[in-house]
Structures are given as C-alpha cells and as structure tokens.
C-alpha cells in the first residue's frame, strides 16, 4: 500500500497558493507515494484540475483529508480539518505554532506527526526545503512591483523630448532574502536603490547587486545569520540617521524582521512626516505588525502629507503560480529523504532537519518553545 498524500484546497482567507504542482506529483509517484488533490485546489493559482491529471482528484475536502496518510498544506489547517485527519497521520505545512497554540494541542491529541516548514533549520543542506527563503524571494520581488505600481512616478530615468525624468530613489530596509530580491527588482526597473540592514555582512551583498549600501553606526548581527533586537537607545539613533536617507525616497520597502519576535518599528511617524508627498511605503513586515508605526496590516492608507503606506498580507499568494511551485518543491525536497528505496515512509527523527521541523509526534509536542508556551517550562 503506497502512502497517500492529500492536498486539500487552502481554506485561509485570501490564500491563493496550493501545496502541489504537476511536476511534483510525478516525482512523488516515483518515490512510491500516491497523490490526491482536492478538486479546484489549484484554481486560485491558475492550476486546473486537468493539469493535476497524474493525481486523483477528490471532490470532497473531508473525504480527501480523512483518506490521506500525509497532508500537504500551505497554511495551518482549521481545527475541523485536523479533526477529520486520520489518527497518526502526518501534516506538513507552515503551522506557525506560537499563533496557533490550540491547533497544536489538537494535533498532539490526535497523535498527528506534524512538521512546521518554517522551523526547518537554515543549514546549507536544507536550503532546498526552506520555505521561508522561497516565499520571501517571492515577496521581495512582488514588493518592488507593488511599489512601482503604487508610485505616481517613473522608476527609471528617461531623457525625453518633454524633459528628463529623474529616476526614482528606492530604499530597502532589511536586506534578507526578501530585501535583496526587492533591491534586485527595483534596480532592474532602473531605480536608484539604496538599502540598509543591521547585519554588517549585508553591505557586500547589497553591493553585489549593484545597489548602494547605507551604513549607519549600529550593528545588530545576531546568531545564525539572523538579527538581534536593538536597545532603545540604538533604535532611536538608527531611526534618526535613517530618516535623513528616507526623506529622499520615492519608494520605501521595509522587510526587517527578527525571528520569533514582532517586526521592529524602524519607521516612526516623525520619519514619515519628512517624506515626500506621493512617496510609497511597502511594508513587507506587515505580517509581524509592520516596520512603520503607522502601518495598518492588510490595508493601504495615505497619510496627511501624501505618503501611501501599503501593508499587504500574504504577499506570496499574489504570485500564486510560482509561489505554489516553489512551495511544493520545498515540500518535495523535504519529504524525499523520508522515503526509502522500497517506497516506504521511514522518517529519520534523528536527522537534524526533520527533528528541527517536527512539531508534534506520537502524542508529544516536540518543539520545545511551543511546548513551553503550552505546558510551561519543564
């Protein structure tokens, strides 16, 4: 009996991605698994049921979920959906346990082996499974596109018979995966791009894309390639120095994040006050509360001085086709080593990556921080 992988239609609002892609089905079949896809699961990502022809199309969501040994999802399932799952089956999704404690409990109760993709350790070998990277790349690209679309100005310089259009200045705050992609895209469009990040190694990376690195006097390099939180004093200083740069910006893209914490508030109202009328802020950190104090996640507002603050949620969803493709491939790369040559599903729970992503297993919460949140420190 081959393992059955079920891919339900996403239920979260505004979610257009799907955790499957036609070419991935073929590869899963090769591994020895069978794939079932809910009818219309790919519709929002423009993948028709026809294109999923290598998979079994199942009309009812409940039927699909209850029949599957492994569920592939983009976002965390509803409690109901977990209820419908087989006891002891496997769930792979971006579960965000700290926001979904109840769900985790449910998973534990139902004895479900669940993996939170976003918890995969960011080691070299795991890069091909890293959904944070793949979806951040999508978001970064899209942020630049949204910025150019919202701006009432040209990005590139144009010398025309009706005068010379000066290129827009785009400033990117946070040069992680998303930030770098935003830099690259804005540069492509011909904008003058400057970028800032607290981690000093980003200077070279920013320059390697042909953009200018803004160098302030504060460094916040933390462990494992992530940033640490800044002290209050440092924050104020950072803000002031940055404000003088940001005042020049036509488009400001903010991507700053600190893992497991709310997004740092880097752009206070005072900074926005000095910005140009018609300037656009795309706050990619909206999901974590935003990098601007004025950010209203999910909304687009215009301030009194004419600054447009766009704070989109679930940006990768907007590039649903390719975001789904990359997400599905991440899942494929994650699950591939769990199958042995005979097509049996034998995850190695000792493996650094699997252990890192494992949230619940055999009735236990294996992810320590989540367990602490739910059950208190040991």
């Amino acid at each position, binding site marked *: 009996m081959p393992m059955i992988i079920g891919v339900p239609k996403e239920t979260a609002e505004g979610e257009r991605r799907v955790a499957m892609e036609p070419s991935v089905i073929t590869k899963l079949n090769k591994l020895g698994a069978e794939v079932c896809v809910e009818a219309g699961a790919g519709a929002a990502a423009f993948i028709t049921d026809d294109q999923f022809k290598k998979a079994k199309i199942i009309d009812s969501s409940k039927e699909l979920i209850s029949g599957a040994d492994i569920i592939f999802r983009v976002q965390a399932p509803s409690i109901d959906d977990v209820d419908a799952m087989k006891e002891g089956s496997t769930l792979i999704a971006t579960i965000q346990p700290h926001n979904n404690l109840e769900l985790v409990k449910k998973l534990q109760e139902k004895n479900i082996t669940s993996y939170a993709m976003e918890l995969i350790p960011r080691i070299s070998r795991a890069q091909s499974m890293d959904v944070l990277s793949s979806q951040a790349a999508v978001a970064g690209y899209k942020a630049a596109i949204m910025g150019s679309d919202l701006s009432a100005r040209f990005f590139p*310089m*144009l*010398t*025309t018979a009706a005068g*010379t259009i000066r290129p827009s200045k785009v400033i990117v705050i946070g040069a992680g995966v998303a930030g770098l992609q935003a830099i690259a895209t804005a540069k492509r469009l*011909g904008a*003058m791009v400057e970028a800032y990040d607290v981690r000093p190694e980003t200077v070279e990376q920013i320059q390697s894309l042909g953009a200018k690195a803004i160098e302030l006097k504060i460094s916040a390099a933390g462990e494992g390639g992530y940033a640490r939180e800044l002290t209050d004093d440092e924050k104020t200083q950072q803000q002031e120095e940055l404000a003088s740069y940001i005042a020049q910006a036509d488009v400001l893209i903010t991507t700053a994040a600190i893992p497991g914490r709310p997004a740092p508030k880097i752009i206070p109202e005072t900074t926005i006050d000095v910005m140009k009328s018609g300037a656009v802020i795309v706050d990619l950190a909206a999901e974590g509360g935003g990098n601007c104090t004025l950010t209203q996640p999910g909304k687009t507002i215009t301030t009194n001085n004419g600054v447009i603050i766009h704070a989109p949620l679930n940006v990768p969803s907007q590039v649903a086709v390719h975001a789904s493709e990359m997400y599905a491939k991440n899942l494929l790369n994650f699950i591939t080593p769990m199958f042995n040559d005979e097509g049996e599903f034998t995850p190695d729970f000792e493996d650094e990556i699997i252990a890192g992503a494992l949230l619940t297993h055999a009735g236990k919460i294996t992810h320590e921080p989540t367990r602490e949140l739910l059950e208190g420190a040991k």
Partner: protein
Amino acid sequence: MDFIVDGSYFIAAILFIFGLKRMSSPVTARRGIVWAGVGMVLATIITYFHKDIHHNYVWMSLAILIGGAIAWVTAKRVKMTDMPQMIALYNGMGGGAAAAIAAVILMQEKEISITLQVLAVFGALIGTIALSGSMIAFAKLQGLMWKTYRFPNQQWVNLFVFLVTLIIGFYITFSGTAYGMGILSIFFILALIFGVLMTIPIGGADMPVVISLYNAFTGLAVGFEGYVIGNPAMMIAGIVVGSAGTMLTQLMAKAMNRPITNVLFSNFGDGGDGKIEAATGSMKEIDANDVAVMMAFAEKVIIVPGYGMAVAQAQHKVWEMTKLLQERGVTVKFAIHPVAGRMPGHMNVLLAEAGVPYDIIYDLDEINEEFETTDVTLVIGANDVVNPAARTDTNSPIYGMPILNADASKNTIVIKRGKGTGFTGIENQLFFAEKTNMLYGDGATAVSELITAIKEL
C-alpha cells in the same frame, strides 16, 4: 682606442633600436627619443677618435656647430603646425649628407670592390633624391612655391631623367675609377633634378606620405654609405630607419586609404590635391587606434549615443570602454538627446541595462555648453540629433529642433556603418566638418576595437 670607438658605435646602435622601439608606444615615446639622443651624442664624440680621421678637426667642429645651431634655432622656433615641413627639411639635410659622403668617396677614386661601388652609387642616388625631394616638400608646405606643378607628358619626362641618371650611375659603378669629376657632377645634378621632378606634382595632402618615403630613402642611403665606409652603427641605424620608414610610409598611405603608388603617380591626371585645404566635401576616415589614443590622452570625452548604438546593442561595450577611459583619469560624460533613438528614454533603457551610473548621464540642457571644452566627442550611431542643419538650414525638416553641439568640441569622432542617413533621411554636415573624423563599422564592433586599442596603450 679602435676597440672603444667600435664598442661605442655598437652601444649607439643598440640605443637607436631601443629608442625607436620605445618611440612606437605613446607611453614610452618620450623616453625613446632621449635614448636615441644619448646614442647620437656618444657616437658623435667618439668619432673624433676614429682611426680614419686625420685632420680637419677644427673645420669639422665648426660645421657641426653651425649646422647644429641653425637647426636648433629653427627647430625651437617653428610652430607646431609647421612641424612636417621641418621634418622634411632636416631629412633632406640627412640625405644630402649621405650623398656628400658618397661624393667624397667617389671623388677619391680609390679601387674599391664592386659591391661597395654599387652601394656607394646607389646610396648617392637615393640620398640626392631625398635631398632635393625633401626640399621641394618643405617649400610646398612652407608655402614658398606653387602647390603643384604639372606639364604634358610629365611622367615620361621623369622616367627619361631617371633612366639617364641610372645609366650614368651604372657607368660610374662599372668604370672602375675611370669616371671623372664631370660625369660625377652630372650624375648628382641629374639626381637632384629627378627628386624635384618627382615631388612637384604631388599635392599638399599627400606630402606627409612623401616625406616619410624620403625619410626611408635617407635611411637606406645612410645605411649603404655606412657599409661603404665600414661603419656598422651607420649601417644598422640607416637600415633600421629605412625598413621602419618604408613600413611607416605604407601605414600612412593606408591610413589615408590610398595605395602608395597612387600617392606617387596618380596625381598627374586629376586634381587630387588641395583635399585638405577644402574643408568640406569629404568625410575623413580614421583608425580605431588613433581614436583610442585621442581619447586616452584627453581630459574630457563626451559620448553621444543614438539609435545606431541601440541597433548595434553596443551599450555594454560602450560602458566598458568608458570605464577604461575613467581608469586612465579621463572624464567621460554621456550626452543624451531628448529624441535620440526611437522612443522616449531609449538611450536610458540601454545605458541602464549596461550599468552606466546615472550621474554621468546628462541631458541636452545640462551638457550643451560643455562641448566647447571637450577634447573628444564620440558620436555612436547618432545622426539627426547632432545635425547642425537644425540650427542653420530653415528648409531642413529638423530645423528648430535643439541639437547636441557635438560640432563645437575640439575633435568629433562619428561611429556609423556607412553613409546611412538618420530617421529624417537628411545629410549631416557634421560628418564633413574639419574637426570630424569617421570611424566606420557596426557600433559594437567599432567600440570593441576601441577597447582593444585603449588597452594596448
């Protein structure tokens, strides 16, 4: 002593060779002439101790002083633009000296081997031709005589004179010592006349080529006489110059797009002269190496891209070239005309693609004043946007359109494939202007050549 003399000559010969080698690259050229100069001083001083010199030391020194002083003063005084005729003058003097040496030897009527005799006479012949020919060239360029002079059957007359001279030369060579002063004088006079005849019909524009040819002649004459009097320094310096000069003559003729025979003999038919005088009417082609040197040693270069750069997709190359120039300390700016290309911002798109930073890109209003102080303006595939007709010709379809004043800069180089017109299909007087030179070829190819040439400097 003899050993020291010979050794000094040897060193002088080495200095000449390396001096010339250095002179063939713009970077080392200045040191090259110094090397050669040192060799010359060494050779001259040591010659006072030469075993064949028995007397006349004072007169000799006097001659050196007088000749040197006159040359020094005239050479220092002359204007830069008059340099070519001065070269002709000094070259003629060298040819004359070689001929005079031959004359002394032939006058001595010693028995010498046939080889020596042949070379002595041949050296005398070409030295003398170089003397009178160079003098005519000098006179022409200096404006001392009519630019060209022609008469019917000129070529036949010349041929006749030449053959007679040659026959007398043969006679001198093979008559042992039987020839007398009379014959010798006639020989030299005829050679002088032939040099004059050969030069008078050649037009001003071709003069540099002819001077270079006489320079090679003098070199050969010096080399031959060096052999005759057994002086290897003279022999080697002379032959090296003779060979280098021949090569140079060919290169110069090639740079003018004319075979050398054409320069020497074609002017009898048509009015090919005066080409340089008449400023308009012809486009002047230029070589990539030359453009490279002009730009590499310029203070400021402005690049004017146009639709042709887009068609050639030459933007990446243009930027690479720019960086090379910048590394050499040249200020390079891009001047973008508002309607260059075929869509608004066409040039911007391409330059941005190549990575040209915005701060060296200027639009018409910002840069138009600057052309006057620009050493080289490089127009790449632009045409209408630099067409001065827009300022002057009220009938032109582009009259009234502001244009980039590429014609105001000290030198203008235009890269285009051929005689193609621009969008409006009209002629462009800029291409015929005196300060304009054309570098023909596809934009990408031409700029590639420039890059290679700049790198070699």
